[in-house]
């Protein structure tokens, strides 16, 4: 069987095609030149900032410089932010800032910043870009006029026979004037077409790789999120099944039983009023049981006091109903968190307090809740027996699972004889 030949783009006139390739190459070089030229804008402060950082670091050795270091790093981050934006615009995709949140006094800020690998990656970028950025920029910018001069070299030599220099080689004869610029121009063209785009690519990937999030860290984070997301989905599924079962086996079955009694009462109404009365009373008792069960189901889905009073009010109510004395430390203006977070926080506090009264023989509990930026922190500390072990099947596993499902962190410290401290961090989104 013969297939008809498909027309190919190559069927276009060869000259047109070559012109297109040329145009693309020139556009690419121009773009790369522009990138390297704007790169000088960040390279100058990067270069000038290096001795400043060195000075601050030297002062840190004498301790007095320590408080200035966070400020110096803050300035560095202003520079890296503008570079990140520049590179992002050229690359056409966003480069997220990878820093850990900085907070607290200068000591705390200093520790956070120095422990953040991003700070050190910034420093590497600053050194490399500070040293190479200016050279790249000058090189790319200078090539264009150099090319023009080389191409027009015979004219220059004709106009100024003395003192005409082609790329550092003085020209003395017509032969030289007609041959040398050929080679030099070819070199300049090669540099523009190949080296300049290469440098630009290098500069952009330097910014992307050193100023953006670390790939390995990102991968790890994605794996962790995938895992907690799976757990959250499983927990959610189990929760739905439990609610379904509670409604189906409990409430629905109860209602059927009530309907049966009412039907029988209807039949007995005229003939046996005593039986009818007993059945009616049974039916009302059944309804009361059902209402109680329904309340339990609702409480399990979302504690009503949470929606009435928010986490603060709900926790105070919980604390007030305990056998042990609970001291609640919580700001009065605790901002509201997403419903799922508040429900989890309530669950953590309720479970912890249940554990305290069941297992610890403590007589005092300190309950601290605070919002720290986008994190809700909960700490429950008792003065009981300690020695709590999540593996021993207490509510601790439930707490860990519920917290992990929201990408939070749980830490449990329970040395024997020295009380138990449960600390939980829950991210609140924004």
């Amino acid at each position, binding site marked *: 069987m013969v297939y008809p030949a498909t027309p190919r783009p190559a069927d276009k006139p060869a000259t047109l095609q070559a012109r297109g390739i040329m145009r693309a190459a020139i556009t690419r070089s121009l773009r790369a030149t522009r990138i390297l030229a704007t790169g000088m804008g960040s390279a100058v402060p990067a270069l000038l900032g290096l001795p400043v950082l060195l000075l601050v670091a030297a002062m840190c050795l004498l301790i007095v410089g320590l408080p200035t270091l966070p400020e110096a790093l803050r300035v560095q981050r202003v520079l890296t932010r503008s570079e990140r934006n520049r590179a992002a615009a050229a690359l056409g995709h966003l480069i997220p800032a990878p820093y850990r949140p900085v907070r607290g006094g200068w000591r705390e800020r200093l520790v956070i910043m120095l422990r953040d690998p991003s700070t050190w990656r910034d420093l590497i970028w600053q050194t490399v870009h500070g040293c190479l950025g200016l050279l790249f920029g000058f090189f790319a910018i200078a090539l264009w006029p150099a090319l023009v001069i080389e191409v027009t070299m015979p004219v220059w030599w004709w106009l100024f026979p003395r003192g005409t220099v082609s790329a550092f080689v003085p020209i003395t004869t017509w032969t030289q004037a007609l041959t040398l610029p050929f080679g030099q121009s070819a070199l300049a063209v090669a540099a523009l077409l190949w080296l300049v785009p290469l440098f630009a690519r290098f500069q952009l990937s330097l910014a992307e790789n050193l100023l953006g999030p670390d790939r390995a860290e990102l991968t790890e984070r994605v794996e962790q999120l995938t895992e907690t997301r799976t757990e959250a989905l499983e927990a959610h599924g189990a929760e739905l099944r439990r609610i379904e079962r509670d409604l189906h086996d409990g409430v629905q079955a109860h209602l059927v039983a009530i309907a049966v009694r009412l039907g029988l009462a209807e039949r007995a109404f005229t003939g046996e009023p005593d039986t009818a009365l007993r059945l009616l009373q049974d039916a*009302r008792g059944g*309804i*009361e049981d059902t*209402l*109680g069960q329904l*309340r339990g189901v*609702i*409480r399990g889905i979302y504690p*009503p*006091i949470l*929606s*009435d*009073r928010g986490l603060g*009010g709900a926790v*105070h*109510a919980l604390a*007030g*109903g*305990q*056998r042990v*004395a609970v001291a609640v430390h919580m700001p009065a203006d605790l901002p509201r968190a997403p419903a799922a977070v508040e429900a989890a926080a309530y669950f953590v506090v309720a479970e912890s307090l249940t554990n305290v009264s069941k297992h610890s023989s403590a007589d005092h509990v300190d309950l601290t809740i605070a919002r720290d930026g986008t994190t809700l922190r909960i700490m429950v500390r008792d003065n009981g027996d300690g020695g709590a072990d999540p593996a021993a099947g207490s509510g601790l596993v439930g707490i860990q699972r519920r917290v992990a499902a929201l990408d939070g962190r749980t830490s449990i410290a329970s040395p024997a004889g020295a009380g138990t401290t449960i600390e939980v961090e829950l991210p609140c989104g924004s």
Partner: protein
Amino acid sequence: MRIVIAEDNTLLREGIVLLATTAGHEVVGIAASGPEILPALLKHQPDIAVIDVRLPPGFRDEGLRAAIEARAQLPGLPVLVLSQYVEQAYATELLAGGARGIGYLLKDRIGRVEEFLDALDRVAAGGTALDPEVVTQLMSRGDPLDALTAREREVLALMAQGHDNATIARLLVVTERAVTKHVGNIFRKLDLPPSDSGHRRVLAVLAYLQPN
């Protein structure tokens, strides 16, 4: 007696109105949201206000807050608070201004018509009606209560709900003399000052049961 009802759910509101009018009471005012309660009470000056905890506009605890505010503005106004669920903390807040003429019941209790009407009368007369579930929550905490016998705990719970000796005797199917004996034992064991069967006794018991 003259009643003001604050309830946004039409079905429930009609149910309460039906109950009250059947028992010979008069519903003089209706409030369907939190902000409407106080003006209605000030306008009608009822003998008792029946208020749902969760009301528009926020569907949080507007009714409870309005009830507390009403008690501050109209001292001695009997208030019966109804709720889909009971919360011991809410009971504590309601009772903070005194237990005279305070009721706090689950909506479920409306179904027991006689008991509900009895609670309504009791509160209107300046008595107390606390839901058994609140009392259970209150009594679940203290170790000193472990010293009581099972029967004494039952009597204490009924006292806390706001019942007098005669009613307690009827509910437990015992003689009134037996109840008096149990009450005496309870007060001795809990080291409470002896008091007669009026509000002072309810107050003493509730004060004892209040957390912290």
